């Protein structure tokens, strides 16, 4: 009965979507705002990667909301899993020497790769969120490979707070010094297509990278330790 109702519901949704999609053909120009960003984005923001200039500069306020949601989830996860009872130690077999050495060897290299991704966010594909996710994957490798090692919770929370504060403070400086709006690009744009260019975009992406990395590492820590 439940399956039949579900299939009827899905069929109704399917008909509605087909009727809509007939008016959106695949593979042609559709919006003018996207073309505007592509034409003017390099001069107005100094970033070569147009997606980055949209995420951090044109819609930076939107990104601040996104970072806030991630922060709320990290807090909520800690609150939901806070009062768990330890039901005896699980018996854990220590990992082999090859696995432990491999984890210790790969950990700094993955951190370096994540840092590269978020520092070059305005030049190459990538950015703060992707680099932060890569850094968190390094911590996941440590949790899976070497049992007994934990992240330092105070250091993680401090990094997270400093990342968020840098984002907001740069936005407020832009409001007072640069233009008349939050997160305006007040720093010199520099030579285009070089590392030191694009004004505030690399600074904000570095802050986001540290924040997302430490937040996702905290989420991994909560899910691994308290379940």
């Amino acid at each position: 009965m439940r399956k039949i109702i579900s299939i009827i519901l899905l069929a109704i949704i399917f008909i509605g979507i087909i009727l809509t999609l007939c008016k959106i053909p695949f593979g042609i120009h559709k919006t003018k705002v996207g073309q505007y960003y592509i034409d003017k984005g390099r001069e107005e923001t100094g970033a070569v990667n147009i997606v980055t200039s949209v995420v951090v500069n044109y819609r930076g306020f939107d990104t601040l909301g996104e970072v806030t949601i991630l922060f709320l989830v990290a807090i909520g996860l800690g609150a939901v899993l806070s009062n768990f009872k330890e039901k005896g130690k699980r018996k854990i077999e220590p990992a082999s020497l090859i696995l432990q050495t491999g984890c210790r060897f790969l950990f700094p290299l993955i951190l370096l790769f994540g840092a590269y991704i978020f520092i070059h966010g305005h030049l190459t594909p990538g950015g703060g969120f992707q680099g932060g996710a890569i850094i968190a994957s390094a911590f996941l490798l440590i949790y899976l490979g070497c049992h007994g090692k934990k992240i330092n919770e105070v250091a993680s929370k401090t990094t997270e707070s400093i990342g968020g504060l840098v984002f907001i403070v740069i936005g407020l400086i832009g409001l007072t010094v640069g233009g008349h709006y939050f997160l305006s690009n007040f720093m010199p744009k520099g030579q285009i297509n070089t590392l030191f260019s694009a004004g505030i975009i690399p600074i904000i992406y570095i802050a986001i990278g540290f924040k997302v990395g430490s937040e996702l590492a905290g989420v991994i820590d909560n899910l691994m330790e308290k379940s």
Partner: protein
Amino acid sequence: MDFLSNNIYYIGAFGLIFIGLFIILVKHNLIKVIIGISILDTGVNLFLIAVGYINKGTAPIFSKPGLDAKNMVDPVPQALVLTAIVIGVAILALALSLAIRLYQHYGTLDLRKIKEQRW
């Protein structure tokens, strides 16, 4: 055949969306419902990227000189999907933590056996 090759990304995206919705509506295990939410999320992201695509377009990055600005795909859906992926990860983590608490409280993940969750 022409129709299929022209609209293959739309078909794939809505295939994923319908698989996800069907899992959410039909399955009884909470972990499977969360997997369905994740598949639905992936389908929506793929659909947004497909809407922004332009035939024979390149990524909107001026990484080397000589790239034509007329020939680039729309950057706005890509920026939106960047947001949506992060929110998807956040929802997945929160849903899994709630599933852990439900299992500790009721001792089961079957939605038919949890009284308050029955429908």
